[in-house]
């Protein structure tokens, strides 16, 4: 459609309802994309299997953002052009931020399953909803477990991406409050490397008895292994980006007993065992990071459209704001005025024989 041709956007009452998902499929975070896409596909298939929404099928359109702002903007525009009605993507905060106004202008609600930096919230945009726990919620959960474990000196390790640094810095703030455990060090590592001995040297020099890694599982596994190899005996905990069986297999024996802060997962949620099984059967590998959020994102979108009775952006946004008690992995949903989860639903998991199991529900 050109300037002369006029718009002929799809969006009328016929044909499938199109959901758009912007995720990294290439570039440094390419490993994450497939997990999220698979989960979304699964949800779409299930919903369509039950007859779809408003009598229409769901269709998922995925675009690569390569975790890069410019690619993301092009991708978002592509989704808009293709007539997407709800966006259910967003993983890297840096790449997601510039897409907000694009979806905003097109009046498309965004359910962001993974990206959760404060900047997304701070703009108070009406069309933006975050269904991942926020950094501060995760930090609170981490703090609770650190205190409960009776740790005294905590090393916080992040990978200098906004997501990871946010959790680490927020945890540090909590630790810095008088009384209780202390933050021994805030250490940043460079992602995508193999050898973290220099960082570990810094960490061990502060003699912490608790290490909290807030980055992703690839580096996490290596760091855990190298920490243990260097003789570290204290507790180790990782953030939700690291909750993947891969973490345990990279870390090997060193991974046993590692804790994690994580929203409820199918493994820990009663009645969800079947979900894990069907996912694994369909895709040949176990769910990974943000699989359940992506799955929930699609389901939530369907629910909101159903409640709104239409695909019109404003109506869907109103429906999302009105949702109350919709059952997700992270618990029953009701958005805060900020359009975030009221409680992150964070729990503490632990690695047992290579798998994450519930350690403490932090209730």
């Amino acid at each position: 459609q050109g300037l002369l041709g006029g718009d002929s956007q799809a969006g009328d009452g016929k044909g499938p309802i199109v959901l758009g998902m912007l995720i990294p499929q290439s570039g440094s975070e390419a490993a994450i994309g497939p997990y999220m896409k698979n989960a979304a596909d699964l949800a779409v298939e299930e919903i369509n299997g039950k007859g779809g929404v408003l009598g229409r099928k769901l269709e998922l359109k995925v675009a690569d953002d390569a975790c890069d702002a410019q690619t993301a903007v092009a991708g978002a525009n592509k989704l808009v052009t293709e007539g997407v009605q709800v966006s259910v993507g967003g993983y890297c905060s840096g790449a997601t931020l510039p897409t907000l106004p694009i979806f905003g202008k097109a009046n498309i609600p965004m359910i962001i399953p993974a990206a959760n930096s404060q900047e997304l919230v701070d703009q108070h945009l009406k069309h933006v909803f975050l269904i991942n726990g926020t950094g501060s919620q995760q930090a609170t959960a981490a703090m609770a477990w650190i205190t409960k474990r009776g740790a005294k000196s905590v090393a916080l390790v992040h990978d200098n991406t906004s997501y990871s640094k946010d959790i680490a810095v927020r945890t540090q703030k909590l630790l810095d409050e008088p009384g209780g455990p202390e933050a021994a060090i805030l250490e940043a590592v460079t992602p995508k490397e193999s050898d973290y001995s220099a960082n570990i040297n810094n960490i061990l020099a502060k003699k912490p008895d608790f290490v909290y890694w807030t980055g992703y599982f690839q580096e996490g596994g290596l760091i855990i292994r190298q920490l243990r190899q260097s003789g570290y005996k204290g507790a180790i905990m990782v953030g939700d980006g690291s909750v993947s069986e891969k973490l345990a297999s990279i870390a090997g024996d060193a991974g046993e007993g590692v804790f994690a802060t994580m929203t409820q997962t199918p493994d820990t949620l009663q009645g969800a065992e079947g979900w894990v099984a069907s996912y694994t059967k369909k895709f040949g590998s176990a769910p990974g990071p943000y699989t359940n959020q992506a799955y929930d994102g699609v389901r939530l979108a369907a629910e909101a459209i159903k409640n709104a009775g239409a695909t019109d952006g404003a109506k869907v946004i109103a429906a999302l704001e009105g949702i109350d008690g919709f059952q997700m992995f992270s618990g029953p949903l009701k958005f805060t005025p900020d359009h975030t989860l009221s409680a992150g639903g964070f729990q503490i998991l632990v690695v047992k024989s290579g798998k994450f199991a519930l350690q403490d529900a932090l209730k």
Partner: protein
Amino acid sequence: MSQLIWNGLFVGSFYALVALGYSMVYGIMKLLNFAHGDIYMLGAFTGFAILGAVGGISPGMALPALLGVLVVTMGVTGLSGVLLERVAYRPLRNAPRLSLLITAVGASFTLEYGMRAAAGADPQVYPLRLGGTSAEILGARITLQQIALIIVAVALMVGLNLLVTRTREGRAMRAIALDPRTSALMGINVNAVISRTFFLGSALAGAAGVMAGAYYGKIDFLMGFLIGLKAFTSAVIGGIGNIPGTMLGGLLLGLLESFGTFWLGGEWRDVFAFGVLILFLSVRPTGLLGERVTERV
């Protein structure tokens, strides 16, 4: 302190190992072989595939098994390097030097995303681990594997240096680097020498890939990118095309990173390392051991 130095040396010797091949290829063709890091990645995955095909290996056999895998992998990556040169670089021998940069980046993408298609985007866990029996030496915790790795790196460096400075093959390599046309007039088979150089350089990168896989335990399709850059950096600091210089460059980079992390924290590490490098190069513009070329006018 001694731990810092040791860490730096160890990481540095990895850089050096990859950089040696980089430097040889660079030395002979003045080519920024962006795909070199990906050959390293290819090596890691080749080793992974072989180990997977062979099946379980008892811990006692780990070291000999690793050696076997190493040799096979070196052959495979060496040939891949030769093939790469044949397909993507040789036809451009007479094109502007930077044209090769494009095919190099193209080859790098092709290898990376080809591997992604073949093995998936998810990292793979090496089936073979070098366990860590460590000892305290001079206040630093050192593992046996680390020592072995450094010995291998140094031995390769010494051998390569002898090859390049003492042998006829080495002279031919240097001559080609200076003037391929005239080299041909000396009876040097330029294509063959370049192929052999690529073989050697790529085999070294492949070996480094397997060692990295076995030592760190995790491999993924993008693992070569960063180390490729670091190898390039090491090769340049050392003095381009100079083998001992490259080795020293790798070690220096490792040390800079180690001390940068210690003094300024992990987030400023690369700023520190590059900052020092820039200062250093502005004082010594031809790198650590680079020959000062006095060009006649």
